């Protein structure tokens, strides 16, 4: 219910922002449309919990990552001869809900050197393209660290326990 209210709020904000002028009729129509869409397309597992400090930590590390990854690509672009070692690495993740898995997959694409190319096993494995591959194990470790930060910010208690367990497949 709380998740649905957040969806309605977000859609209302988008609507008002698109019109560019916050007014009462805009707000009423935006909320109405939001309610209709939230009822028609329910999102299961949409943030049931959000821990402010963990969310802040996730946001700050993500911002740093985005800047670092942009500079890394920029350096490759400007180098006289780009020296890439590309590779596709399978990374098992443990996110219990699709919304969390999607968040991790999307954030991976904006962090240095990694890009989600495919998702398999019902969202349990991410296939990640790496621009400068040195050590597949390090890629898995950094993606799983990102997953832990995301779950710490938005996951349920069970989810946090699930990501704390040692990876069962494909590690090493």
């Amino acid at each position, binding site marked *: 219910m709380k998740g649905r209210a957040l969806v309605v709020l977000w859609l209302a904000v988008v609507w008002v922002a*698109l019109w*560019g002028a916050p007014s009462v009729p805009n707000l009423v129509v935006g909320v109405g449309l939001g309610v209709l869409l939230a009822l028609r397309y329910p999102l299961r597992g949409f943030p049931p919990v959000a821990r402010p400090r963990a969310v802040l930590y996730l946001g700050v590390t993500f911002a740093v990552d985005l800047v670092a990854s942009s500079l890394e*690509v920029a350096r*490759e672009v400007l180098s006289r001869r780009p020296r890439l*070692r*590309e590779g596709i690495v399978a990374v098992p993740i443990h996110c219990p809900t699709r919304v969390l898995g999607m968040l991790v997959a999307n954030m991976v*694409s904006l962090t240095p050197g990694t890009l989600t*190319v495919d998702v398999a096993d019902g969202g349990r494995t991410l296939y990640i393209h790496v621009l400068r591959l040195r050590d597949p194990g390090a890629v898995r470790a950094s993606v799983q660290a990102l997953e832990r930060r995301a779950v710490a910010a938005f996951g349920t208690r069970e989810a946090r326990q699930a990501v704390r367990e040692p990876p069962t497949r494909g590690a090493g």
Partner: protein
Amino acid sequence: MSVLDAIGGTLMVAGAALSLLAAIGLHRFPDVFARMHAATKPATLGLVLLVAGAAAVVEQGSVGLKLGLAAALQFITAPVASHMVGRSAYRSGTPLSPDTVLDELAGRSGRPDRPPPEPPAAGDAGIA
């Protein structure tokens, strides 16, 4: 010229420069997947900087709201778009560049085993 104008201008130039680098990366990188890296990260940060610069220069609050929405939508859509392009490229058998050293997705995605047909030799088509 106010301090805000200076900040806004600096941010916008930095954002435009990053967008330019992203475009050059699209041209220079060797395969679809490397190009998607260029199209996703610097392009996103470039747009965020442009939007932040514009918000510093423009004085109406409602414009700021629209600019914020543009940045938020970029964060939501850019990774999805690059994921979709990369996935369909992989599954349709687009060749990986010779710089590729590892492919753990091989044999797991319905990618055709045979290589895709050779492109027509230069000179056959009017556009080479």
